[in-house]
């Protein structure tokens, strides 16, 4: 598909998504009070923001129907998309295990994975980088700057 045509399709998809999200926000804000003691209540701003999203979504859809967009999407190939997804999963997994395993363990594992699996460094080099970086961060931030980094079951 030509790039500009792909841009048009993406704009249309974005428009539909924004429109649908606007409706959800609008409906969700109906459960909040619209007015308070002196003017707007907690639901005032979200209601109008939901409505504005609906209008913007509609404008995006209409715009994509009327003219070719002035941008060419730069989408990743299959490998690129997999690398991005793997990095995200690794960060989420780190967040999920940070409190249980401690910063040093998680940072070592994460750095090794990023350097070995995504940056294609040889395993020994990735392991060395992981140990150096995780150690430097623990020392620099945990000990010197006293950032309260989480400790694992082994005390680090």
């Amino acid at each position: 598909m030509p790039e500009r045509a792909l841009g048009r399709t993406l704009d249309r998809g974005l428009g539909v998504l924004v429109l649908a999200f606007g409706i959800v926000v609008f409906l969700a804000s109906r459960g909040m009070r619209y007015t308070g003691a002196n003017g707007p209540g907690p639901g005032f701003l979200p209601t109008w923001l939901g409505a504005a999203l609906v209008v913007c979504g509609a404008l995006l859809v209409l715009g994509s129907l009327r003219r070719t967009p002035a941008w060419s999407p730069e989408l990743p190939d299959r490998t690129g998309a997999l690398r991005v997804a793997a990095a995200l999963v690794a960060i989420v997994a780190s967040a999920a295990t940070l409190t249980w395993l401690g910063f040093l363990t998680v940072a070592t594992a994460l750095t090794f994975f990023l350097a070995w699996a995504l940056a294609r460094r040889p395993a020994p080099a990735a392991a060395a980088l992981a140990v150096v970086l995780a150690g430097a961060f623990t020392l620099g931030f945990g000990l010197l700057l006293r950032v309260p980094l989480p400790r694992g079951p082994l005390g680090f």
Partner: protein
Amino acid sequence: MDALGHLAGGFAVALQPQNLLWALVGVAAGTVVGVLPGLGSTATIALLVPLTIGLDPTAGLIMLAGIYYGTKYGGSTTSILLNTPGESASVITCIDGYAMAKAGRAGAALGMAAIASFVAGTVGVILLTFTAPVVAEWALGFGPPEYFALMVLGLSLVVFLAGRSVVKGIVSAILGLLLATVGTDIVSGESRFTFGNALLLDGIDFVVLSVGLFAVAEVLVNLERTVATRLFPVPTRFRELLPTWDDLRASRFALFQGSLVGFFIGVLPGAGSTVASFISYAIEKRVSRHPERFGHGAVEGVAAPEGANNSETGGAMVPLLTLGIPGSGTTAVLLGALILWGLQPGPLLFVEHPDFVWAVIASMYVGNVMLLILNLPLVPLFASILRVPYAALFPGIVLLSIVGVYAVNADSFDVLLMAIFGAFGYVLRKLDVPAAPLVLAFVLGPLAERALRTSLVMSGGDPSIVLTRPLSAALLVAAVVILATPALSRFSRTRVQLIEEE
């Protein structure tokens, strides 16, 4: 006390050893970030904000501001040696800077970039010194209605930060406003969009959002592919880095106009340093007696844009410090940092915290001198950073993001949110939706809502209070005019053309 008296007081604070050290850390980090393609000042400042929370606000902002203007110095090194801009503000420097390097004059190009950055950067700070107090004094009469109107004016700037599509910019801003509503409503105490999650009752932290949107998203975009680079050899002898007298004579006007153009473009919200460097380059080429030399290694083609993009930072600090209006993604992050430290940017900052404001301004003079020293004799050292493979760099950025975000509340839920915002920022980039309006709205939205509600309490619930006070009405009219500008096809064409050139 006049500006010079305040500035002298500012120097007394800025020259304290610990503040000198933080300025040096900031400008050195800024230079490194500027040299490295794929890591911008916005992402770096967002990354480092949480780690500066424990610092004295003066030291913290001195360091963050150092990163901000330091990146402008470093960006030219990559443009000249690699034909790849380290920063978007140095895109245009590639044209003549790289041509000079190909002709064996890389040293002169690097030297001229450093000198132009120093001269124009200093002129920008001088202009900041004398204009900021005037603007702040004018804005001192603002009450809640005027503040509300000012915040609306600030929010209307999404038009300038919108990228190619104004509608997408507005969508981004609305999403920022929505994210700012998450948590407990300040007036009623009711929770909004927390989905029963107690961890969201305090709202979304600015650091979590900005690190995710800028730093993590930037890493993800760079992970898509690896690009091999070829670096020109960097002159190692100091004499080889100095431009000739002929170069300096040829660049006199470029330095002058670059300084002025950069500052005034900087004051204008949303235009930014990239636009400043393009305009300055265009002016230089237009007035030159030998325009045919541009594109083939004209030294003025390096001096003008490098001067303009450094002077621009002085200009951009005027609306940020005096009115609390950020004109770009980077200054929006700086505004967020000020709020995190418990400071409210705006005219009262000059009255309530003069030591802080003037120390930061004074530190910018000192920082520019430091940068000149760093960027002339030490430029080979900084250029060698370009040989560090991204494989070693990006795990460090990810770890720094995790540490920075975790440091805010000592809560791993924030790290999870950061990853979500990272993915969100990545998708926004792929869909050509700018992230800067989102951050701008996230910072200004709650301030606007609070000012509106305070105004309504003042008026007993009568909303006309924001329209009947002359200054407030004038600011709202200005906001409407700004929002209407995309309808003017000529303005829109010029804006999109500048973005395409970027």
